């Protein structure tokens, strides 16, 4: 009885070990391809994507990849997570080194189908508006006095998305030493109206 169970377990363990060894390389490659694709999507073409780096700032951990062209750091791809309507919303944000958003893409999203999940649609107005979003514009939704048009009936997802982008921009500004023209980092994007925000800026 014990012998039988032991033998079966040993045999299964051996099989699994073998399969694991065989698939180890392909799994790594597959994961890398998925990641590469999501990074490449948010960065300008023809840049060299650097190594995976992490940084902790403002109590948050960020994963990011610096992209170089001819040896200069020209852009960063930042993985940024905020809490949306249905849980964590993780997006990849490509930011040029002057603090301008290049493009964004969704990594994980549990938002409501038909509402918040529309943030995954490429070429939608919501996603397109982030392209070239400069530091002169305010990275929060229009309802709260910002410059981001929210997805219809999905303000919470839109807020989370904008906040994730804004966090990524703040991180890049921090990395490159740019002085942000608008305080995008402190969560000012959740302020109710513009007057509040302006007061904060004056301080």
């Amino acid at each position, binding site marked *: *009885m014990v012998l*039988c*169970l032991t033998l*079966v*377990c040993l045999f*299964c363990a051996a*099989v*699994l070990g073998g*399969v*694991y060894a065989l*698939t180890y390389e*392909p*799994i790594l490659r*597959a*994961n890398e*391809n*998925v990641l590469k694709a999501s990074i490449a999507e948010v960065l300008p073409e023809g840049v060299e994507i650097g190594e995976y780096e992490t940084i902790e700032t403002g109590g948050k951990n960020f994963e990011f990849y610096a992209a170089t062209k001819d040896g200069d750091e020209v852009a960063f791809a930042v993985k940024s997570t905020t809490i949306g309507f249905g849980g964590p919303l993780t997006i990849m944000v490509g930011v040029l080194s002057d603090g301008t958003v290049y493009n964004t893409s969704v990594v994980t999203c549990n938002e409501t*189908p*038909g509402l918040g999940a529309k943030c995954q649609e490429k070429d939608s107005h919501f996603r397109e508006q982030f392209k070239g979003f400069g530091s002169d514009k305010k990275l929060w939704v229009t309802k709260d006095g910002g410059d981001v048009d929210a997805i219809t009936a999905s303000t919470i997802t839109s807020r989370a998305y904008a906040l994730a982008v804004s966090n990524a921009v703040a991180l890049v500004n921090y990395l490159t030493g740019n002085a942000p023209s608008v305080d995008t980092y402190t969560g000012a994007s959740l302020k109710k109206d513009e007057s509040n925000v302006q007061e904060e800026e004056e301080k």
Partner: protein
Amino acid sequence: MGKKLSLITDGFIKNNPTFVLVLGMCPTLATTTSAINGLEMGLATLFVLVLSNMAISLLAPIVPDKVHIPVYIVVIATFVTVLQLVMQAFTPGAYATLGLFIPLIVVNCIVLGRAEAFANKHNVWESALDGIGVGLGFTLSLTVIGLVREVLGSGAAFGWKFMPGDGVLAFVMAPGAFLVLGYLMVIFNKYLKKS
């Protein structure tokens, strides 16, 4: 040959795992948001079912009665893990959508149920056929549920959108799974099972 063939066709109608035996409800409800997802989940289960049925029919005579359940579970878990690794390596897209539910095939009552009810009393060849029949029945049921939910919920069939915009979103969400499963079960038992 007729008997062998009926081993396969039984799994479709008489022993249909979803609509008649009502087994494996967790993946049935969770993964059938579209026809493709249902199909992929069905095929993954089919793979495990056929291999575990064969392995167990070989092992059954030499495994002592007292430990037969642990042995079956170990065998099934092994095949599921193999499947998981292979999918991760070669079909990362399907793995991303089904991810969580692949390991859950281990506790899918269909697999252990066929091992207990069929494979340990029959030879390898018959067990394989039974696995194919039940697996295909499961695949078919999941695909049909997924198709109905996709057509009603997102206005598409197998990923092909035939109407602009969204459908009746409730069908893509959890309540829709229960509704569609319930009504398909009614239709299946009223019309197909009789014939």
